[in-house]
Structures are given as C-alpha cells and as structure tokens.
C-alpha cells in the first residue's frame, strides 16, 4: 500500500509539473498576444513580392467542393504570368476529375494532374505535384477551403525574407452554426491561430506550418528532402525538418481562409486521433534534432519540444487524475486537496486540447466575436472528448510501435457542403450568401446570415 501511495504521489507530482509548464506557456502567449506590440508585418509587402508560384490543391473524391476552390483561385488577383494551379485528382471515384478537366479547359493557368496508381494520401499527391511544379514558391490549399482574392499575395509576402522556408495563414471554420461542436471548434481554432500562432510568430518562436493555407519555398523543400509520404501529419513533419535546418516559418494572421470544421463527434475524434498520432510520431523522430540544432535558440528548442509533445498532455492528465483518485481513498487523503487544486487548475486550463480558456477569451476579444463566447463553458465536454480520443489514439500508436504493426491509416475528413458545383462564389447556392467579398479581395462572413 505504501508503495502504491508513493507511486501515486510521484505520478501526481509529475502530472502537475508538466501541466503547469504548459499552462504557464499558454498564459504567456495569450498575454503577449493581447498586450504587446508585434514585430514588422510582412503583409505591408503584399503585392510587392511576386515570385512565380505554384498552387497545389490535392483532391480525393472532392466533387462537392472542387469547383469552389478552383473558382476562388482563378479569381485571385495574382499575376497570371507568374501563377500556375496544380489541381491533383488523387484517384477519385466521383466527378472530381471531370470538374478539374472542365476548369483546365477554361483556364490556362490550371494544370490537371490525374493520379491513377501509386501510394495514396495527400503526401503522395504532393510529391508528384511538386515534381511538376515550376514555381519558386509552392502554396497549398485543401479542397474545402475558400481563398479570397488577395490570399495568394498575402501568403507570398513573407518570402521576401530569404530565411523564410514556409508560411502559414489563418484557418477559420465557416460552418459554425452547424452544430455545437463546430461552434466550439471555431473558438478553439481562433485561440490556436489568433493567439497561439501569432504569439509564437511575435516571440520569434516557430509557428506551425499547417499543410494548407500556407506555402513552402521550393528550394527549402528540396533542401530538407521533400515531402514525406509515410507520415500522418506531413505539415508538422515538414515544419520541424525546416526549422532544424535553419529555415524560418512565418505566420500571416490576416491571410484568413475558411474551412469546414467537423460537425459530428465521430469525425472530430478521427481527426484529432490522426493529429495526435502524427504529432507524437514527429516527436519521436525530431526531439533529438531539435535539441541538437545549431540554428535554434534555447527558447525555440524548448517551445519546439512543447509543440511536439503537446498531445502527451492528455494521458499525463489522466495519469494525474488516477493518482489523485488513489490518494483520495488512501490514508493520505488529507493531502489531496492542495494537489487537486493545482492539478485541476492546470488541467482545466488546457481543456480544448490546444488552447486554454484564457486563449479562447483572448481570441474572441481580439476578433470581436461576442456571439460564440457564451459557449466557452461547454468546452468542458470538448475537453473530455478530446482527452479520450487522444489517449485512445496514443495507446494504439504505442501498441503498434511495440508490436511492429504498420501503424494507423490516414482518414480523409468528411465534407459537409452540399451542391458545391462551382456555385459558391456567384451562383444560387445557399452557401454563397455566407460570404461577402470586400473591395480588398478578402472574403468575410456575412454576419446577417451567420447571426441567423
């Protein structure tokens, strides 16, 4: 019994220490983003830096959304003489290939790539497209995204710095009203981008390249070995391969692009399980390189490890809970409260997996998003759901590593948009009125529709 209690105390102390460090880090980010001035924004150079770019749009069974993203891209105000759009039909079994061909016949800047064999998945599609791309900069969009007219210029602008290897824009869910989950995810995404990514950019740390609404310098990509097709999170993988070799990753908060967030828990759990597995896999592959990299400052190294290990917080939290449960029923029960206070505080601050409640509020404050902030307490349930899904995913991942199995498979995130045959930006589609395109070319949400 004494050994069990000692073990429980050690586990609780470890959990508290780790979670406290994460909580402090998130607090620092939120306060820094809220209150301190940011460094020079490369957005001021948008339109002045116009290298030749290739926009890569991998698609697998995307007939619902393919036309929308292609139409939005051809409407972008980037110089067509320096632009090519590589629409990749990755072994689709629906009308995706036909939609791409229709657009390619109409617009000379669209180059269709039809993949019929070889490895599947986004990584493999990107490998093939990169071989055919002629641009100095490769921009990436998933098929369910809505880039505004000025988006390409915004994303290209940080590349004026020759040390920048990759750039990331901001992702905002557009289907907030679809379910409580999608509304909660908007809060979480806002905290992750508006606060987390921007704070890391401001502090000279490493914002994460997300694999969509972003870009990578072709020469940097080649220098670090190209895309890795075997990873579940090729974006995290590329981010760390770039930074350990000395390239910088920039974040452009104003490059806002709309996406579809999961509307059901089943889809969300698959998505977060994939992220957790891929991220943790990157942790095992990169932690030594991050620590040994001569290009990274001590703070960048520490933050890099925090980013890589972020999904470990879920099992550590569960470990802490189990330990406090053991202590609660032990003769040492009188010690529990103080420990529990600390554990609960740091644990709950982390709810939402990637964002503390303080970051959720800070993001809402900065965005002026008063509409959804009332839902914040409900994020408790999101926290429990994410914690369970992450623990299950990591259990499968480590079980797979021990048994030597091939590891988890990539799951395509479900699309919800209806009738997306090119009518979103100009047709009679109901979704069209969700967005208004301003004179500056940025799509923003039509608040009358969203409010309803």
């Amino acid at each position: 019994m004494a050994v069990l209690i000692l073990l429980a105390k050690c586990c609780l102390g470890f959990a508290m220490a780790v979670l406290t460090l994460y909580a402090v880090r998130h607090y620092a980010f939120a306060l820094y983003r809220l209150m301190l001035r940011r460094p020079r924004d490369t957005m001021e150079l948008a339109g002045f830096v116009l290298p030749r770019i290739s926009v890569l749009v991998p698609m697998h069974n995307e007939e619902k959304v393919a036309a929308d993203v292609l139409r939005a891209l051809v409407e972008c105000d980037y110089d067509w003489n320096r632009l090519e759009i590589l629409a990749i039909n990755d072994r689709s079994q629906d009308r995706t290939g036909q939609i791409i061909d229709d657009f390619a016949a109409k617009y000379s800047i669209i180059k269709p790539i039809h993949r019929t064999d070889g490895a599947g998945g986004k990584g493999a599609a990107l490998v093939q497209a990169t071989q055919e791309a002629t641009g100095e900069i490769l921009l990436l969009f998933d098929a369910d995204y809505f880039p505004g007219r000025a988006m390409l210029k915004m994303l290209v602008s940080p590349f004026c710095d020759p040390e920048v290897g990759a750039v990331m824009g901001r992702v905002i869910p557009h289907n907030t009203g679809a379910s409580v989950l999608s509304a909660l995810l908007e809060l979480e995404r806002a905290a992750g981008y508006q606060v987390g990514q921007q704070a890391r950019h401001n502090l000279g740390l490493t914002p994460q390249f997300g694999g969509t609404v972003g870009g990578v310098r072709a020469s940097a990509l080649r220098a670090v070995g190209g895309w890795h097709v075997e990873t579940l999170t090729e974006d995290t993988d590329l981010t760390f391969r770039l930074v350990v070799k000395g390239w910088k990753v920039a974040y452009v908060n104003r490059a806002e692009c709309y996406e579809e967030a999961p509307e059901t828990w089943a889809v969300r759990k698959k998505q977060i399980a994939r992220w957790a597995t891929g991220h943790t896999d990157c942790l095992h592959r990169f932690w030594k390189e991050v620590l040994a990299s001569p290009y990274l400052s001590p703070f960048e190294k520490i933050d890099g490890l925090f980013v890589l290990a972020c999904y470990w917080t879920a099992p550590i939290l569960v470990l802490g809970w189990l330990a406090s449960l053991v202590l609660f029923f032990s003769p040492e029960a009188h010690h529990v409260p103080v420990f529990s206070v600390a554990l609960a505080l740091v644990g709950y601050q982390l709810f939402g997996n990637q964002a503390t409640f303080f970051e959720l509020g800070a993001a809402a404050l900065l965005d002026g998003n008063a509409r959804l902030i009332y839902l914040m307490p409900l994020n408790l349930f999101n926290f429990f759901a994410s914690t369970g899904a992450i623990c299950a995913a990591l259990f499968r991942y480590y079980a797979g590593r021990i048994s030597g199995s091939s590891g988890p498979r990539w799951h395509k995130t479900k699309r919800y948009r209806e009738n997306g045959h090119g009518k979103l930006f100009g047709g009679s589609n109901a979704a069209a009125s969700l967005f208004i395109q301003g004179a500056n070319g940025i799509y923003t949400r039509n608040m009358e529709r969203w409010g309803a």
Partner: protein
Amino acid sequence: MVVPRPGASSGPSVQVSIPPRRSSLPWRDKGGAHMRGDVRRAVIYPHRSVRGLHVTAARLVIAVIVAAFLSVGVYLARERLLFEHNRISRGLVELCDLTVLGVQTVDVFGPIGSTPVVVTKVFRFGDAPVRVGILFMASVIGLLAIHRRVQLARNFVVFLLILLLVAVGVMVFSQSFEIGSAEFAQIWLRMEVLVWLLVPWFSAFLFVLLEPAVWLGILWALAVQAYAFLWSAFRLAFCLAVVHYSGLLFVPLLWFCLGLLADLVYLMVFYSLATHTAIGRSWGKRAMWQF
C-alpha cells in the same frame, strides 16, 4: 557558435524600411461624428488581425492591488468567513430536514486555523447494502442513457462511470474505509479556502486587465469572490445531503465534479460573460492597431 541560416547567404535580399505607423484612433475623433452615424466614419478600421489591447502600467498595478486586497481580505476575515460558511451550509442542511448531530471543530490548514463544521448522520454500506445496489444501478442506467443520447457528454459520462465504479469497489472490498460528514467538510474547506485565496489573482488578470472600464473589472472580481463563497456553501450542503442518503457511493463523484471542476466552471462562466461585455467596448476604447 552562430551558424548562418541557409537562406541568409543566398537569394534575393529585400531591404524594408517603413516607419512605424499607428492608425488614427476613432475615439479620438473629438467631434464624435463617427458615433452619431450621420456621416461616414472618420477612419476605416484596420483588420482585426492587427489588433491588440492597450494595457497601461497603471492598469497592471490596479490589477495586482485588487488581487492582493481580496486575498489578504480573505485571510484576515477567515474566521468570520468560515463561521458564516458553516452557518449557511447548516441552515441549508436543516432546511433539507437532515438529522444534525451537532458541530465539530476541524483544522483547515496551516495559518487558516480551525473552524466549526456541521455534523450529520452518514449512511453506512453495512446499514442497507440493497439501497446502495439500487442507487448504483439507477445511476449507471441514467448515465448510460445520457451517454447514448448526448454525444457531447459521452466522455464526461465515462469519467463519471469510472468514479462510480471505483466508489462501489471501495465500499464493497474495503468496508473499513469511511468518510464522515466532518471529514468531508474538512477536506472540502481545505480545498475551497485555497480557491478563495487564488481566485482574486485569476480575477485580476482575467477581468481587471481586459475590461475597458476598470471599475467594472473590479466589480467582476468582487462578484466572482462573492459567488465562490456562497456557491461553496450551497455545494457543501448538497454534498452532505447526498452523503447522508447514499454514503460513500457518490463521494468521489461529488469531489471530482462538484468540487474544483464546478469552481472552474463558474470561473469560466464569469469569464465568458465578462469577455462578452468587454468585446463591444474594447473595440472602440482600448484597442491598439498595428501594421
């Protein structure tokens, strides 16, 4: 050793020299034309992405003073607070018609000292094991029903089920383990007093810094402190009632869900309310725009 980054020595180099610029702030428009709505706005608001909050050193000092004032206040008035806390919870327990056996003095912790707590009769597993079985089954069925119908709460329900199962395991296999009402109240107060001491610091940085009107931020901090005190007494009375009727069965559930988690949930609710009220005003008052 400084190693040059890969792009540093090659590629185009762009010299950027643009002086810092801050847009005209609309609330400095003395005429207030933009507020009347009869003419076009004096300025075009910059994009939200380049927005921050202007926090002065004075505001920071006020936040620290408020937090320190409330924490020290709780410490100095600890005897009175604990006495009133006990009075409220005892009143509620009596209102529920529970058998009050008396009052017992318990130690809270260190410098806080001791306090009287109400003692009630507590249900023991050996008294009526069938009742425990029925309560357990009813709870499990209820939780499973929620698990099936409310997707949002599924993992939370699993968490509750685990706590319930652990409690039943302890009741059945370790019958010597017991928690009386005085012990429960003691554990409760040790936790809650710590919360009362910590909450002001959270309030200071959540409300006083962010709220455009400083007095409103202070009001929010005071409201949270008052709520923390009153809600604690209500929850303790409820827990004592549950322990009176079901013994140890729901104790872990009460401790882990109605204890600190509930404290954090109301903090969250207050924070979301305060943020909501602050959003509209902060866009026009304390915002700082940068390019």
